[in-house]
């Protein structure tokens, strides 16, 4: 799966998250930050990461999630790494 396909999948998750303003999702790139740019509440970001595990059928390490931060690129890195570890 390419980074573009992962990004597309993350945007689909955000589109199904009622707290996220859908108008903010038109220009999401790897440089976007979930919290500062998209105003995703931090409690909801936990759900986005958990939904990503379900959607991409991967499992993240707890320590990696603790160090993740809130950037889209970091999340794609994490998903890519999880694919490689499968």
């Amino acid at each position, binding site marked *: 799966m390419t980074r573009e396909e992962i990004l597309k999948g993350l945007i689909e*998750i955000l589109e199904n998250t*009622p*707290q996220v303003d859908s108008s903010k999702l038109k220009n999401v790139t790897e440089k976007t930050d979930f919290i500062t740019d998209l105003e995703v509440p931090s*409690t909801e970001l936990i759900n986005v*990461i*958990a*939904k990503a595990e379900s959607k991409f059928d991967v499992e993240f390490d707890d320590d990696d999630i603790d160090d993740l931060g809130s950037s889209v690129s970091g999340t794609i890195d994490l998903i890519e790494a999880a694919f490689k570890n499968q």
Partner: protein
Amino acid sequence: MNKVAIVGMDGVFPHCKDMQEFEEKLFSNQSLIRNWDLVASYDKKIRTKVAGYATPEETGFQKFSNGLPDEYPMDLEDISGQIPNVNLATSDLGSAWAMKASLGAIKDAGWTKEEIESEETGVVIGTGSGGQEGTRKVWNLFFEHGKKTRALGSSNVSRSMIYRDAANVSCLIKNKGVCEAIGSACATGLGSIGYAYRLIAFGLQDRVIAGGTEGTALETLIGFDAMQVLSTKFSPEESSRPYDKDRNGFVCSFGCGIVALENYDQAKARGANILGVIDGYFNNSDGDGDMFAPSFDGQQRLWTGLKKQTYINPDVVKAHGTSTATGDVVELFSIAAQLGKDGYHVSAPKSQFGHMLGAAGAVEVIVSLLMLKKQMVSPCLNSDNLKTELESFQTKDDWQGPKEPLAAYRNLLPQLALAKPINQIVCLNYGFGGTNSAMAISKD
């Protein structure tokens, strides 16, 4: 003690889209009870077939498809867009209803933003049951499907904690005063309003949003079905039949009732529309060690306590009247022991919409306020035949109550809505654990 006024009300009611439809159906003698397809889908695993519930189309809240399979907890969406998604993210269905009804009651009250957000405004809302549907899904994901805790979602605590309804309403309206839940099983709704009344009467708050809510949950219904206390074998509209000799259980219902209480002098000074005045509130316990059975002695002490609070001369007694075999008789004999055989009427609104559990007392306060407004007694549907023989406990030496059978009190129970002058109503509710609550409400 400050005098306390009720200046706003709203709710979510079975088979109704709003307060107006609720009022119209109540006083045109309609039943709000229906067969429930979800119950029917479990066939003989569930004894009862009927319930009181509102559909997503009626309540305006639907489950939001968040892209996860059905076994995951769902977010809610307010079709009207009135409740922001950030608030719905932390609420379950009952809390969402409480938020919607609180906004309705506040609109009725006409409070300003400054008043709502002040330290003198409180929220007291309770519910009868625990986390229910959401909690079941979360537990299943962890215990049965072996998911990590983060897969369960971050909202389970705020959606299942005991005072979730009060907390969600408080976060929505941003009051700075008291925010608590009262829990007393089926007396929760009246208990919450009673506690809110005391906060204002004792000078601790100027205004309080108060009530009870019970979100639709099959998980709740099956618990009572297991106890074999739910109505069976009657058509939906005939299934709730308080005091009738063929009654065989209550109808499990879901809904929400919220009222806006305010210091009477302040409400009067600003020209508020006063829906009713709370004359007094009293609550106690049976003290007999019995979790379930009603107590004549406990209810007699309840009346005595209420009479010490204020002058009691009701035109209507709004009874708990659940349609269970043991509850109804003890309650009616207890009322008659205090008030005699005539001069007042007994309203049994559960005959129309079933038993809304933690919401029941609050919704029935709203029914009482509607009775004051319309000057009509809501009916006791299906009380067709009252037993003409004595109850077995009436023949025992230690029985202190009335010595006549239920049929002797026929004239107290209007089978159709009845127009008459109504100045004072006594509201009664009881709950498991032997808890009893009584409130007297009057016209301004």
